């Protein structure tokens, strides 16, 4: 090789290194808008739908998306643009979301906080710090958040808590101990019901729902159901639908119905149930159960009537749409469209599907990573 060639190579190398080297100005990642996902309609009763994406653990990739029913737009990753001043944004693993009054609440599990946003603008109004928070529910001007642990570092305090937060001051008012690693909650007849999982002790999962009086905020009863409870929804007939995750090995997931009058198990549905949405008389259920011998998820969808507690033969996906890993579900209270998210492989953006009443796909759109929980926005 001749010296001139060598020199040329060296110059080229430096040029490449130099050209590629300078860093871009840091700036908030802007939101992305998908125009006319469906036709705009200014006169709809339900204005929009917030969708929170969990983001993978330690990735700090929780993100917030919004379906605008009035404009037909899908707005992706809206938090950073509305709240660029918040250090590292929405945070790590958003687990739940809820709209109450004029506020939007987002439970960010890995960031130990509940974010409070203006429901119209998405601008941040405040933050409630809470260790390891999981799910959120509202009742009579108060916010209730379940949390895996009341405190960390105390080997004798394995129990979780439910914290009561004031919607105006955004301060915790009081808290109560419930079972270990409590998950979803529902309020029926002045009482709060919370599903306990006991997920930190797989050799001895919890089996109960804790019943908490909202007057005293004390646990007044426990209802024995099955191991590793997770989802808990109330129907309009005073019943609770609670899922048991099983042990992911020998005991499969199941769906239990609890009578809140007797506070006892009323019925067992021997079906795989990962998550459900109840709208009026119908419950929409999906399951992605991991099979440890094949390494595959077996996916199933079920519908049932909550009025007479019977399984239905109808399906909410009828066109064979292939969802890799259903991860969230919501039903439009007016149009009865069904929204199902696909978390795909957890490490890549997910998909939000909208199905019409006949179970046919109306539209789908790319979301953030691990799209999970929904909250409708009314007027």
């Amino acid at each position, binding site marked *: *090789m001749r*010296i001139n060639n*060598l020199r040329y*190579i060296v110059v080229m*190398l*430096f040029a490449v*290194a*130099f050209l*590629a*080297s*300078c*860093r*871009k100005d*840091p*700036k908030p*990642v*802007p939101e992305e808008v998908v125009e006319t996902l469906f036709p705009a309609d200014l006169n709809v009763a339900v204005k929009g739908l917030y969708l929170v994406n969990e983001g*993978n653990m*330690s990735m*700090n*990739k*929780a*993100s917030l998306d919004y379906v605008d029913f009035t404009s037909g737009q899908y707005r992706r990753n809206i938090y950073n643009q509305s709240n660029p001043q*918040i*250090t*590292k944004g*929405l945070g*790590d*693993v958003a687990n739940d979301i809820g709209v109450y009054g004029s506020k939007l609440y987002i439970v*960010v599990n*890995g*960031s*130990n*906080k509940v974010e409070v946003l203006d429901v119209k603008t998405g601008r941040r109004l405040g*933050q409630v710090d809470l260790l390891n928070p999981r799910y959120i529910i509202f009742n009579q001007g108060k916010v209730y958040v379940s949390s895996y*642990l009341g405190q*960390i*570092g*105390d*080997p*004798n*305090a*394995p129990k979780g808590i439910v914290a009561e937060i004031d919607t105006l001051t955004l301060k915790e008012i009081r808290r109560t101990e419930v079972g270990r690693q409590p998950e979803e909650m529902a309020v029926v007849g002045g009482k709060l019901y919370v599903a306990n999982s006991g997920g*930190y*002790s*797989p*050799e001895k999962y919890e089996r109960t729902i804790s019943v908490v009086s909202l007057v005293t905020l004390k646990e007044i009863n426990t209802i024995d159901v099955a191991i590793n409870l997770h989802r808990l929804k109330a129907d309009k007939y005073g019943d609770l639908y609670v899922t048991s*995750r099983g*042990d992911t*090995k020998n005991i499969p997931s199941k769906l239990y119905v609890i009578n809140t009058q007797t506070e006892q198990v009323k019925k067992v549905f021997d079906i795989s149930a990962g998550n459900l949405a109840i709208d009026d008389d119908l419950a929409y259920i999906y399951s992605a159960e991991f099979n440890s*011998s094949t*390494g595959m998820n077996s996916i199933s969808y079920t519908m049932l009537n909550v009025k007479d507690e019977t399984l239905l033969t109808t399906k909410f996906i009828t066109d064979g749409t292939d969802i*890799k890993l259903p991860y969230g579900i919501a039903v439009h209270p007016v149009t009865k469209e069904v929204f199902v998210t696909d978390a*795909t*492989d*957890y*490490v*890549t*953006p997910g998909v939000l599907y909208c199905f019409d009443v006949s179970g046919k796909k109306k539209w789908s759109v790319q979301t953030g*990573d691990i799209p999970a929980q929904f909250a409708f926005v009314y007027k």
Partner: protein
Amino acid sequence: MRRNKNAFAGVNCVFLTLITTLLLSGIGIPVILQAQTVPAQKVAAQPDSLDKINQLNEVEIRKIKVSRRQTSSTPLQILSGSELQKLNSLSVADAVRYFSGVQLKDYGGIGGMKTLNIRSLGTNHTGVFYDGIQLGNAQNGQVDLGKYSLDNIEEIALYNGQKSTIFQPAKGFATASSLYLKARQPVFEKDKTYLINAYLKTGSFGLINPSVLWQNKLGSNFNSSVNAEYTRADGKYKFRYTNGVYDTTAVRNNGDVERMRLELALNGVLNDSSTLSTRVYLYSDEMGLPGAIVSNKFNYLQRTWNQNLFVQSTYQKDITKKYSLMANAKYGYDYNRYLDPENVSLNGLLDNHYHHQEVYLSAANQYHLTKFWDLVLSADYQMNSLDADVYLFSYPTRNTFLTALATHLNFKNLDVQANLLGTYIHDRVEDGTPAGTKQKLSPTLMVSWQPFNGKEFRIRSFYKEIFRMPTFNDLYYTDFRRAYIRPESARQYDLGVTYIKVFHKSYLQQVSIQTDAYYNEVRDKIVAVPGNNSQRWSVENIGEVEIKGIDVNIQTNWKVQPLDFNVGINYTWQQALDVTPLSINPDYGRQIPYTPEHSGSVLFAASLKKLSLNYSFIYTGARYNQKANIPVNYIQPWYTHDLALNYLTKVAKSKVRVGAEINNLLNQYYDVIANFPMPGRSFRFTLIYSY
């Protein structure tokens, strides 16, 4: 490219331009001088007599230090001796950053895990060998290079493919890339029977790091060495995150480290002129585990404790003139404790203890068939077992049998090595479904060719098929048993050239270039996806990756009286595409996470009498931290400038070296792994006393 408004980054760019210009002009001027002297030589080299040409060539050849770098049929990069000592490096991990084609996965700070990913095959495809015997971790298949101190290391050699020699244990054929760490071998000066080196390092992060190396001559044939080291650091450093609106600077917490290491070695030549070396390695640490810096959570409480013990021995004997034997044996015990106060169960805080044991036996037999033809048969046996106090743990034991048949043809201008490796692996578990038996045959072919008469230019190429077994974590992680996981296979093709040239009467003394183009395929990639609780883990053989790359290494030696200096440049271009079928992978054809297209380093070392100066620049281009190549996954390029100044003097009969280092001179804040911030500017001071 947009210019940066940010003053900090702006300085960086300017500085870089300056350095570039300086180096370019530095290379340019002597080259012009060289150009003037070349014709004179050419005239001299054109006489009629062929003999004369040969004579001249021989003169020239003698001056070329053709090293293993040039002759190796697999790409080889080496850092050794004083070069290694003068680098801005505390651990092996710091040093390997200067190699091309590698990405150091660095979680930041002194304690943060540092593993090596070579040519985008994945960290589990890198074998790390300590004095010829592999450092293993059957639990997660990775070696944390941050834990290996440089104080007792004489040489670090990185081979793509495998070591370019066939007389080695079967393990040497069994990884996609190999990093060889060679412990320091004593060289006694005349009339001396011992050698003492005492080190003291201190600096940023609350670092206190004394160590002593005592080497002793035992009679005429034996020597021993004792090396003890203590490291303590609070691991605190400032980091900064900004999106242009928020701008937060905080101090890294829970990064404290305390480490102790004791190594004993005995080397000798026995009466029958066979060689025996034995090493005992004892290590213990306690450290905090600094977690991801995420919104509203900067502080962590998790801690870990490790204890490692291994005893290894190598015996080598030429039994006849034609037959040689090399035997290796090792016993290793690793203990790990993980404490998570943020996870409280009925049993109290999450507190897991893992015990890993390894037994390794190897025999390599070499037979010289003819002058130019060697045959090797190597057989290795390895047993790994893992115990843990984790609920539903499966207590796996793995028996591995490796047999390699290798041949080496060495002609004057052509060197060919080929081997076939047979692997038989059997897993047993006490609870649940074992992965059972896996068998594979893996071929390798390596060629090094000198097409012309001169030794300056060589062409090399290799083809290698290999795989990695799923680790115990992949297969038996608590409540999921994943017997269905298959080995992850890697196929490598490499074609490269090496060139070395010595110059006379010019400032530039020597240039050596190694450059390789490669194509790798990873099939059945084992993909583990962490979730926010144990029930969300999933491991599958779904990944497929195709990697194209070019590595360029250039070393130049200069002499401008009274100054000696070396400039080394490494550059890597890499395209590592996720080609997992589109039906299950919306990111088909995208660059895999954490793989920059461009990366490289520049090393400048100058010495003037007792003083030596090292400057290094490391550059890693933009990457994505997840599969989708979208703006939210984008990570900025990073580049650091490091400086080290060393002064070596003699005080009476002893040598004293004083060193000062500045790392990340321009205080750039960056992440190698998203949300695990790296330190900004830091300092280190070294005092070495040798007697």
